[in-house]
């Protein structure tokens, strides 16, 4: 690992100021992704600014009935929180479906959302990777691409976003609150991560030194009827091949409202708005679900080894929503 300096800040403004002065500096959450990438020489910060004591570790109810989760809350505390489990089981399930307890104890909410792709070429500095070193090419397109994207990829990058939590948050209309060198803003989760395009080195829309301070979950009563389904190569402790986060509001057998997001298929958590639109206002039958899922996936462009993800995603959508309907 390359040498680096380590500093602490006492508040978000102080942490942001420390990063603003150093273009190679990085925030340190739990370190479970960043320290790993530093060992691999993929991340090369010259300064780490520890967020312990900077970002909030509390989960609070907002006056409008929403819930605010501090960016410093550990993944374990988020998943165990009674309010989250009652209001948004999909969020607790997604977190618990990822990593292990000993990782979730260290990992923070902010760090989880900003973890980097698990594409093997990104993690291997001996290979070409446009995300790690812009302009060097994408080794995955002609290489091992079984785990990689089928939606929204580009000729320059077919990486996927690995976070399970982000998929659940995208489904329930969450937003992140940030503080950066240019002030503070609120970014809907659907707009936090981006598609790779010709500049896959940027995973998300945050500026250098922009700090996530909290995640807001809006009041969404039917999110109490939500679920996360993760499909992977082993029963536990593996990243998703495909995952589905869904919530549904069924009234007299008709879909009044629905939320669906997919993980493991794209460079960002994939909100399935096309499928949602097709499902609203009708019954939740297997046939309608299949058609809606197929419409969502028509633009899929699989690679040599991952065409299986398309029917897998379709079936996962159908099964997850039928489960929610109690069928």
């Amino acid at each position, binding site marked *: *690992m390359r*040498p*680096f*300096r*380590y500093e602490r800040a006492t508040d978000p403004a102080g942490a942001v100021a420390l990063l603003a002065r150093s273009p190679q500096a990085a925030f*340190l959450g*739990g*370190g*479970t992704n960043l*320290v*790993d990438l530093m*060992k*691999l020489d993929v991340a090369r910060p010259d300064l*780490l600014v*520890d967020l*312990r004591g900077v970002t909030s570790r509390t989960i609070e109810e907002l006056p409008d009935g929403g819930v605010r989760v501090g960016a410093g809350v550990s993944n*374990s505390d988020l*998943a*165990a929180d*009674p309010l989250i*489990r*009652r209001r948004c*089981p999909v969020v*607790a*399930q997604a977190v*618990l*479906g990822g*990593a*292990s*307890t*000993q*990782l979730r*104890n*260290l990992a923070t909410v902010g760090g989880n959302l900003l973890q980097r792709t698990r594409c093997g070429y990104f993690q291997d500095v001996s290979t070409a990777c446009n995300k790690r070193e812009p302009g060097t090419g994408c080794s995955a397109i002609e290489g091992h691409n079984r785990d990689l994207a089928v939606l929204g990829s580009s000729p320059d990058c077919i990486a996927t976003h690995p976070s399970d939590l982000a998929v659940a948050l995208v489904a329930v209309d969450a937003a992140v609150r940030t503080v950066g060198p240019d002030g503070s803003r609120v970014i809907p989760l659907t707009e936090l991560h981006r598609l790779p395009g010709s500049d896959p080195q940027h995973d998300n829309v945050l500026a250098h030194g922009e700090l996530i301070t909290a995640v807001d979950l809006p009041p969404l009563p039917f999110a109490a009827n939500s679920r996360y389904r993760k499909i992977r190569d082993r*029963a*536990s*402790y593996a990243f998703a091949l495909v995952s589905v986060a869904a919530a549904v509001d069924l009234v007299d057998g008709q879909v009044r409202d629905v939320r669906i997001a997919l993980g493991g298929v794209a460079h960002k958590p994939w909100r399935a708005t096309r499928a949602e639109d097709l499902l609203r206002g009708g019954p939740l039958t297997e046939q309608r679900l299949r058609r809606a899922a197929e419409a969502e996936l028509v633009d899929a462009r699989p690679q040599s080894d991952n065409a299986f993800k398309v029917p897998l995603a379709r079936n996962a959508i159908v099964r997850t929503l039928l489960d929610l309907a109690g069928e």
Partner: protein
Amino acid sequence: MDTEITLRVDGADHRLTVDTRTTLLDALRERLGNTSPKKGCDHGQCGACTVLLDGRRANSCLALAVAHDGAEIVTADGLAVDGQLHPVQRSFIEHDAFQCGYCTPGQIVSAVALLDEAAAGWPSAVTFDRPDGAPDTGPIDVAGEPDEIQERMSGNLCRCAAYANMVPAIQEVARS
């Protein structure tokens, strides 16, 4: 870049100077001579380095020592009090729950933490699939649920695949 930190390890206080790059695992093993946490993968994937960090299990290979200045750490070595093995340690021996033993200190620390987490009402990924759903408060019974124990132990790999006896070893302590 050197920094001075303090760590309380298995009840004893230590003051040491570490490079910022030093992980807790390396500080424990190389600097303090506590070799009970093991280095398997050094990337958070195997759980051999698991310790209790301020009361919670954590992969010490991904935790920077400087970031945990002042922390209280318990390793598998520190679970035995006055020469008396911890009930989980005893149960692993009684159930022959290991083969080469390399993963064992991490497994045991994880199992000790698992019992506390279930008692504190932390759900796991499989809790939601149980017929009683995920109760949102109160302790979660894992003694009669091998699935719960397997899921909660999934962050600890065993190259010898001695898993089959670990589950009953943990169930027995959970029951008592």
